[in-house]
């Protein structure tokens, strides 16, 4: 029995020690008075870190302040205030604010523990962190909750309404007249600043506002977040716009036939409501020097390369189609749009260009829809030069070295022969007749050749053109070598395509068409000399990724459905 009593005594002692904590007056300035209990006299506080026992009280005079520490929490008292320390138990901490103003910053509350501030009329049970309480002897009081929440309870139940309720952060509560209902409002900026300011008795004016500066910093961060959100929204709206502007995009990195690493970006855009443009941008960090592209073109006239190494090379292959009707806004409706008999292309251009330098070397073909023939035709009429019969229905080639700003006029078919009656082979803009300096056109004539192979997928072509369709303007040649290559740059064979047992999608993703063009001088046949000096070749690679994904999408995503 004695043993049990000893164990109980030890346990109880530990509980008593653990459950009790102390309120310590850690700092004060000015005239601060202390009273041991309600029967004793007020006396001066002897020193800082003075222990305030249950039942004691302190009061501050004009211009004085005090700070109390209890269980990781702090209570600050401003001038002309009186505070009773009612309980300092770890599970129940209670202060009575008789009059004046206090701030409490409460942290580390245990489950079921309570921290409260009582005034003459009410009890504020603090559940959160920072609050400010004001109290007066006439019973009026107010509470501002900066963070967390406070459980409010009337000491004397009101005639009407709830006796207790929760006041959440950001709210300001006040009882101005004990006979009248309470009022609840948003915390004012002044009160928020007052709570955030430093109430430490020894703090300077600068210290007082350090927390406010911190809060302003946090506000700044939130403003930055909102600005970021707005920018994301803007991105979203741009994205939505882009969805209409650029219907398909694709990109691939591969090796070209020369072994250069190539990045290809492809996108399908709509320059206007009737026009579709497929951009195929070919970028190479380093374009290595070579003499001939392949064993097939070696020593063939017109196919020699003479420019040397080129850093940061950019080529492009741009296909543009314009239609007689507005394209549907949704890609999903293209299938029915294109199968409509009343829809036909108005014109089309195929532009192959070397965009590396400020002046652009290009070759292009244009096609115009002839109503009477019901088809797209490439003859002199594409440059506005009429022909009375189809006798000279040979291809017209547009080429030249032009300023970058003029490339759009070529792709958007804004060009025509400068002198319609006696063609010179030079071009002007359709819309304002201004010169497209450096651009010429020529009509294909006999004299060209073509080499290809049934097993290996390559083609070498040379074609002779007469400038302005008039012998008096002279001649030039186009030499073009086309290869179907794999992503590793090797030339593909017929079997690679037809007997590979691969899906169409796999074949498309692992193939590209490399097309290298040279414009050469005429010297009783094609010469190896560049027609445009210092502009040797255009080396584009066309991939089928966008076209394939377009077909996939236009076919209504049928693979999502079971059959």
């Amino acid at each position, binding site marked *: 029995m004695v043993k049990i009593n000893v164990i109980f005594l030890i346990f109880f002692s530990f509980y008593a020690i653990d459950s009790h904590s102390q309120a310590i007056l850690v700092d004060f300035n000015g005239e601060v008075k202390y009273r041991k209990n309600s029967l004793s006299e007020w006396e001066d506080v002897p020193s800082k870190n003075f222990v305030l026992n249950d039942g004691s009280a302190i009061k501050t005079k004009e211009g004085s302040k005090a700070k109390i520490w209890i269980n990781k929490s702090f209570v600050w008292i401003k001038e002309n205030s009186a505070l009773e320390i009612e309980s300092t138990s770890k599970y129940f901490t209670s202060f009575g604010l008789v009059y004046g103003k206090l701030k409490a910053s409460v942290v580390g509350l245990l489950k079921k523990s309570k921290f409260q501030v009582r005034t003459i009329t009410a009890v504020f049970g603090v559940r959160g962190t920072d609050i400010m309480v004001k109290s007066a002897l006439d019973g009026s009081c107010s509470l501002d909750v900066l963070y967390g929440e406070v459980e409010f309870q009337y000491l004397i139940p009101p005639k009407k309404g709830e006796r207790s309720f*929760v006041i959440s952060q950001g709210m300001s509560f006040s009882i101005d007249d004990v006979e009248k209902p309470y009022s609840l409002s948003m915390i004012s900026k002044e009160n928020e600043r007052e709570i955030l300011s430093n109430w430490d008795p020894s703090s300077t004016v600068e210290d007082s506002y350090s927390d406010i500066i911190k809060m302003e910093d946090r506000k700044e961060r939130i403003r930055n977040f909102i600005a970021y959100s707005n920018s994301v929204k803007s991105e979203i709206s741009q994205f939505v716009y882009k969805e209409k502007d650029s219907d398909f995009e694709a990109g691939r990195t591969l090796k070209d036939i020369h072994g250069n690493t190539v990045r290809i970006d492809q996108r399908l855009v709509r320059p206007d409501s009737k026009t579709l443009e497929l951009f195929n941008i070919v970028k190479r960090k380093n374009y290595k020097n070579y003499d001939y592209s392949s064993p097939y073109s070696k020593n063939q006239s017109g196919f020699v390369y003479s420019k040397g190494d080129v850093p940061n090379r950019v080529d492009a292959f741009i296909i543009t189609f314009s239609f007689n009707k507005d394209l549907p806004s949704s890609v999903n409706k293209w299938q029915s749009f294109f199968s409509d008999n009343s829809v036909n292309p108005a014109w089309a251009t195929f532009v192959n260009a070397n965009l590396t330098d400020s002046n652009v070397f290009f070759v292009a073909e244009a096609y115009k829809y002839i109503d009477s023939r019901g088809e797209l035709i490439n003859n002199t009429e594409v440059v506005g030069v009429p022909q009375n019969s189809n006798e000279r229905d040979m291809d017209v080639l547009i080429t030249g070295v032009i300023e970058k700003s003029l490339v759009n006029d070529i792709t958007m078919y804004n060009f025509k022969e400068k002198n319609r009656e006696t063609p010179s082979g030079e071009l002007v803009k359709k819309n304002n007749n201004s010169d497209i300096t450096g651009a010429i056109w020529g009509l294909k004539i006999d004299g060209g050749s073509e080499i290809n192979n049934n097993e290996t997928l390559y083609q070498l072509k040379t074609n002779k053109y007469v400038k302005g369709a008039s012998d008096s303007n002279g001649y030039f040649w186009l030499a073009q070598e086309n290869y179907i290559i794999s992503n590793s740059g090797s030339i593909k064979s017929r079997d690679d395509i037809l007997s590979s047992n691969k899906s169409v999608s796999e074949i498309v993703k692992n193939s590209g068409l490399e097309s290298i063009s040279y414009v050469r001088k005429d010297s009783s046949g094609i010469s190896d000399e560049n027609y445009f000096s210092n502009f040797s070749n255009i080396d584009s690679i066309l991939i089928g990724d966008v076209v394939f994904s377009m077909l996939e999408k236009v076919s209504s995503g049928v693979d999502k459905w079971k059959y």
Partner: protein
Amino acid sequence: MEVLRFIISLFGFFFLLTPLYSSIKDKAEEMVAQVVADPPKFFYELKNDSEITLPVPSGKSYNFNISLFPTLLPLTYANTSINYNLYKEGKTSASMPQIDLFGGVAYMFGAKIAANMSDDIDDANFWGYHLGFLLTSSVNSKTRMFYGFKHSFLYTELKLSPNKKHELLGVEIKDFDSSFLENSVLFGVETLKDIDKRWAIEINYGLKNNTLAGKISWYGKWFELGFNIYPEGVIVIHPTWIMRLSF
């Protein structure tokens, strides 16, 4: 054609919101085409409207939510969700944020009714759930930032009668039976504007399917009004109306 009518009727109410489109039928067909391309994604966006990922207000322990529009009405997406406050901000440590858990379920009972009433549709099932957590920190007394994680799942099934040939915009279809799963991170800001009146903006990014959604909402003691924005969705802006009770 009943299939087409079934799907068109699902977003018939959105036509009221698209006065710029001269031809409602064209717009509907365009939407149907997008739905056909990826049915679960479309139904997921509608279900996402019922997923309430806002923090429990300070002073409250949990929220009980029912999304009324466009989910319950008119799409018959019966749904409910709860946001439970596990830990109040700064209770044991000043730097600890508020921690909320949330979860909810949704079931489209109208799909079943439509299936029973239709000769073309044999069966239709749309149901899903979501769960996650939210951390909330106060920036000042009236503004809180929140961030969290959400796991969402949607099961979609539509079985058409095998005895008939069904076509949607020229594409022959039979049925679909698939699910949509998304794990999202979310960020947002909530601001107290008046007593029991708040507004919030939120960005929600799906890690699995790279889905992006934005949300702006205003809410009081009983209801929440807002807009969900799906930049890549069939319907980009969804107006929302949610009953949201806090206890």
